[in-house]
């Protein structure tokens, strides 16, 4: 079983909002004092791959795309138990949209060659789009099941529980296929000390656009079809009306009165 997991390096979604700034001139986000992390949903995808490997055996290759990627971040899946790491690392890869990103990843997956299963997070915590997985499947011409909460693999089929509004549906999909993973799959495991030591020794394979047979104008900023017209932080009203009180209890009771006064309740 050859599994490929696509993982994005993102700004930490749990970081305090005060560390978050937007540079209006470039429409880019600057983080102050909070290091990047691997995308939370990507981490669930890694967990899903490790569960499958535990029963099926095989190899897990993770692919990340960007420039100046932090090794301790993109190596986290290796520390959790993945086997190999491919980095699409070059300045031309950055600034892309769903199209240019899915295209570069799909071409890299073709170069990896042997794959039974491609896993992605259901969406990334920065763009909140959820298009990379379906996009890769469309480009490669393989089926895709989104929002997986459980994946069971037998020889050439995956049985996937897919999250729906009222519960879940059980879907059989032939391999190779793309599956996007939701948080219901279960908490990602922590890297072990042994895992961290092993990850240190694994050298990532780095592919430039020419290595995966793509022209620079197809990827990153140049390859995008969506334009960002404006990126801004909504101005919060900051008009919270506080219920006063001599004691917390009094504040609690006054809060209820305030809500009644304002006809919220």
């Amino acid at each position, binding site marked *: 079983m050859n599994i490929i997991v696509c993982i994005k390096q993102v700004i930490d*979604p*749990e970081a*305090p*909002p*005060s560390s*978050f700034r*937007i540079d209006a001139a470039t429409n880019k986000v600057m983080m102050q004092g909070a290091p990047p992390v691997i995308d*939370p949903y990507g981490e669930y995808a890694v967990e899903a791959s490790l569960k499958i490997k535990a029963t099926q055996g095989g190899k897990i290759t993770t692919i990340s795309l960007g420039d100046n990627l932090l090794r301790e971040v993109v190596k986290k899946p290796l520390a959790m138990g993945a086997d190999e790491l491919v980095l699409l690392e070059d300045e031309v890869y950055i600034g892309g949209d*769903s*199209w240019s990103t899915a295209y570069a990843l799909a071409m890299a997956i073709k170069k990896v060659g042997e794959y039974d299963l491609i896993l992605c997070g259901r*969406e990334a*915590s*920065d763009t*909140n*789009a*959820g*298009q990379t*997985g*379906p*996009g890769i499947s*469309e480009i490669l011409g393989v*089926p895709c099941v989104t929002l997986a909460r459980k994946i069971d693999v037998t020889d050439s089929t995956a*049985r996937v529980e*897919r*999250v*729906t*509004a*009222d*519960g879940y*549906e*059980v*879907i*059989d*999909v032939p391999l190779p296929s793309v599956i996007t993973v939701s*948080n*219901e799959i279960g908490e990602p495991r922590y890297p072990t000390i042994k895992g961290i030591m092993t990850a240190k020794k694994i050298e990532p394979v780095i592919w430039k656009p020419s290595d995966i047979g793509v022209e620079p104008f197809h990827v990153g900023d140049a390859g995008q*079809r*969506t334009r*960002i*017209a*404006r*990126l*801004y*932080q909504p101005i919060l009203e900051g*008009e*919270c*009306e*506080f*219920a006063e009180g001599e004691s*917390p209890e009094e*504040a*609690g009771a006054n*809060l209820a*009165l*305030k*809500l*009644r006064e*304002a006809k*919220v*309740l």
Partner: protein
Amino acid sequence: MAEYKGVAVYCELTAGKLVPISAEGLGIGKKLADDLGQELSAVLVGSDISNLAQETVTYGADKVYLVDDPLLKDYQTDSYVAVMQKVLNQITPRILILGQTDVGRDLAPRLAFRLETTVTMDCVELAIDSQSKRLLQTKPVYGGNAQAVFTSDTDPQMVTIRTKAMTPLEPDASRQGEIINIEAGVEASAIRTRIVDRVMEEVAGIKIEDAEVVVAGGRGIGSPEGFGQLEELAKLLKGAVGASRPPCDNGWVPDTVQIGLTGKIIAPEIYIAVAISGSSQHLSGCSGSKNIIAINKDAEANIFRQARFGAVGDWKKVLPAFTEKIKELLAA
């Protein structure tokens, strides 16, 4: 090159009925179509659904494209993408609106890649640029820490809309619309996936997505027992209990009540956040609430920047008094 014209809305169905977001899509779709001086179309795909066409007309559709075929009884990616590709090649709309639901999340990106166009997911605001006449697509990014306005270079300009972000029109039974049938033209053999089972999960009480009032707790609640107190308030207000991520991670409450980036996105009338600091990961799930009410011991907590009303203090002292007072007020 085809000329792209008009606004189309993919109207999602469940159990033979329009889902509410379909009417919301038609509501914003009508406004955009009026701004462009063009028509609004509804697209209905399913089995035995001809009775629903007129309903989409009452919500504003000028034309209804109906694809009715037994093979389309259940949503399956392969068949629905193929059908929508066929429909869109026929009607070539300038704008296509879908809902950000479990179906929309699956269908929209696949269809966009198939049509070699783009889609912006989870939009909360849509408008026509007065100069370029292109669609301005506003969506929260970075877990709601920022909003981005996107435009697309290609047609159709596809978007999904967030639940309850757009307002439906009042249904008007006197409206007239044209109904056009389109053959599905799908072979069973082209569907690569197979639905084995569909499981409805029973939820005790009101579903968190449907509740008008949600009482949610954070890390500071500290135990499953603590959530019992939140439950009491929720019951009183006929609402549901939710949580930020840490209580779910700690197993105090089930994962299904998680609100935030890695959980549910909700927009109730009243959201009462107890001992929740308000990380962007959490706020991305509740920032659409009409009234956020926060109880937190830290007056500087980020949640108060989003809240309309708040009380500062240890929730263990504030909440019982708050609940007691509400009981009194409701009884009066």
